[in-house]
């Protein structure tokens, strides 16, 4: 133990602790709880039964009262540990509760009803994961449909983004033509035009081209990302022009140069853009909310919000589906976090 402490507290120059070190570690430890805590709490809560969710104070781990099938009863009965009048502890199953009196039976002797004051009994509980929170909404509600819509939107939008953005970036980085700087300026300028500023006219444009209430209406307006063009162009500028000349001498057409030379060489930048695009499109909310009206077209984000907005909020399903919604992003985070952080630090892009 002391070795661990020594390891953790070792500092440059071996000097002692001062207040900044204490503050650093307090901040970092608190950071773990504040940053990870809510997500962990969400995951733990998502495995709780509705009854456990309604409990206050809540338990950390998902708990469920043990149940047992008792002869003569159709439904499983909940098990309680009861302090008997003679002072002994006994495990009984509860048949029903009337006021403060619970009618209970011994599972081994199901014929005899014992009446117990509810203050005398505590539920027999163990850790139990209510996986039905996940299974039911995916099977019975439309969540599987939403999931499919979200995957479709994310995958298609990302492929189109990579393709169109890289083509434009190629033209803007490797060709000289009149108006090139103008086009570049236009693209960079619209970096500052957020969706909320053009929400109303964009809606009417999407309607006019017949894409209202379709997944393509969600996809197309998002794919010509100025950030993507900008990022790819900056990267392609570092590919030497001599390579293109060499390919031209090698009988390559301009199109072949694009897909045999430029695309493979821009793979690192394409990967960064792909990661960003996946996260962006998966997380999109306002635009799908505006453009989708039929329920069966909802993406996960819109569907979740709709369920969370209902009068009778079914938290056990919503929490579970929130976890499902979070999974791809967490996977991206776990495996690709280094690239993303490097990308942001390098370009200030999000």
């Amino acid at each position: 133990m002391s070795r661990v402490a020594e390891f953790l507290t070792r500092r440059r120059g071996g000097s002692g602790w001062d207040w900044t070190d204490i503050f650093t570690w307090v901040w970092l430890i608190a950071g773990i709880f504040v940053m990870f805590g809510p997500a962990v709490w969400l995951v733990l809560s998502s495995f709780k039964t509705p009854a456990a969710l309604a409990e206050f104070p809540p338990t950390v781990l998902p708990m469920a009262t043990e149940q047992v099938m008792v002869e003569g009863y159709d439904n499983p009965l909940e098990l309680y540990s009861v302090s008997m009048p003679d002072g002994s502890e006994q495990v009984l199953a509860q048949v029903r509760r009337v006021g403060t009196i619970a009618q209970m039976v011994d599972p081994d002797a199901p014929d005899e009803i014992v009446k117990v004051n509810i203050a005398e009994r505590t539920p027999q509980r163990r850790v139990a994961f209510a996986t039905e929170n996940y299974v039911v909404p995916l099977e019975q509600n439309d969540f599987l449909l939403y999931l499919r819509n979200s995957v479709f939107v994310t995958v298609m939008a990302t492929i189109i983004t990579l393709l169109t953005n890289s083509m434009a970036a190629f033209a803007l980085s490797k060709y000289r033509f009149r108006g090139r700087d103008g086009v570049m300026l236009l693209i960079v300028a619209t970096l500052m035009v957020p969706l909320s500023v053009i929400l109303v006219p964009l809606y009417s444009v999407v309607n006019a081209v017949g894409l209202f209430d379709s997944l393509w209406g969600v996809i197309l307006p998002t794919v010509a990302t100025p950030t993507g063009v900008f990022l790819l162009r900056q990267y392609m500028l570092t590919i030497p022009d001599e390579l293109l000349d060499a390919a031209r001498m090698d009988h390559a057409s301009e199109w072949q140069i694009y897909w045999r030379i430029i695309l493979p060489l821009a793979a690192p930048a394409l990967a960064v853009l792909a990661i960003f695009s996946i996260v962006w499109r998966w997380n999109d909310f306002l635009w799908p909310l505006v453009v989708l009206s039929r329920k069966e077209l909802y993406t996960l984000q819109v569907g979740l919000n709709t369920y969370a907005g209902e009068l009778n909020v079914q938290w056990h399903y919503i929490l579970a589906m929130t976890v499902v919604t979070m999974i791809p992003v967490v996977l991206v985070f776990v495996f690709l976090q280094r690239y993303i952080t490097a990308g942001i630090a390098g370009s200030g892009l999000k």
Partner: protein
Amino acid sequence: MATRSISSRIGAVLAAPVIWLARLLNLPLKWWQGMTGTGGMAAFFLAPNMAIFGIFVLLPLVINFAYSMTSGQALFLSDRSYVGGEQYARLMDCGNYLDPTTCREDLFWIALRNTALFVVVQVSMMTVVAMITALILNREIRGRGFWRAVFFFPVLLSPVVVGLIWRWILQREGLLNFILYNVGLEPHVWLTDRFYSFVATVGVSVWAHMGFYTLILLAGLQAIPRDLYEAAEMDGTRAGRVFWRITLPLLMPNLLVVIVLALIRAVQIFDEAYVLTGGGPGTSTLYLTQYIYEVGFASLLRNPGLAAAASIIMGLILVVLTLIQLGLGRRNEKAGERK
């Protein structure tokens, strides 16, 4: 090496559907290149992106102005009647600009006031928290990569997920109240209290985005040459003085970027606040984007013209902020040249 192979593998997978298409396209494109030369090819490469960009970004940007000068509920511009500046006049029709209740469009002014308040509080909190975190992550701590990831984690979460997580935690019988109860503090009904719901939207959005700004600041801190600190140490400079006289001035460009980016984003606050509070209770967390959304789409008496006018006002605010950013950037460049 490992980074290269992984990223190129991802590239290969993503390129797979492209390859088939690419082979197919080569012949017609060779013909096109023969007809038009490389200039025609540049046009070809630009065309898809610029077509989408033109239809879905530039065109809406332009017709937004026309839209804001029409009235009625009709969707297409041709069916709408021209009213000139009436929508703007309606937004600006106020007895006293400091008191939204005297305004004709009181919701707009409430949203504007809420947004302004949100921007000021959120950006200052964000900057301070991100700054402290970046300074700490820049120290010689073990496992810096891990800690950086800890603070970055929420950045990737969707606003809806963020909103729902916190709605769950902040509810009456939620985790926060449980903790407060256990340490002997008074629980609150966070999301149905006018003041606390505002605080919640600020806190949650800081929680969700601080990792991003921390990264930018950290990159700036790490770009400050080590020997400057060593020289200061040789001179016996106190830690506080080192921060104010070395770290802060050299970090200024990054800090300005952070502040302006945070400002621009804060003005647009919508998703997580909308999911968290729905703008309520009452109008205490109604922000500009939600106002535009509700006037344009959600309310029974929707008025796209009014929403367009409001969005243009919001756009103007963003343009001003962007110009400030560009101006500051230029000043920094000049300062850099002088050095």
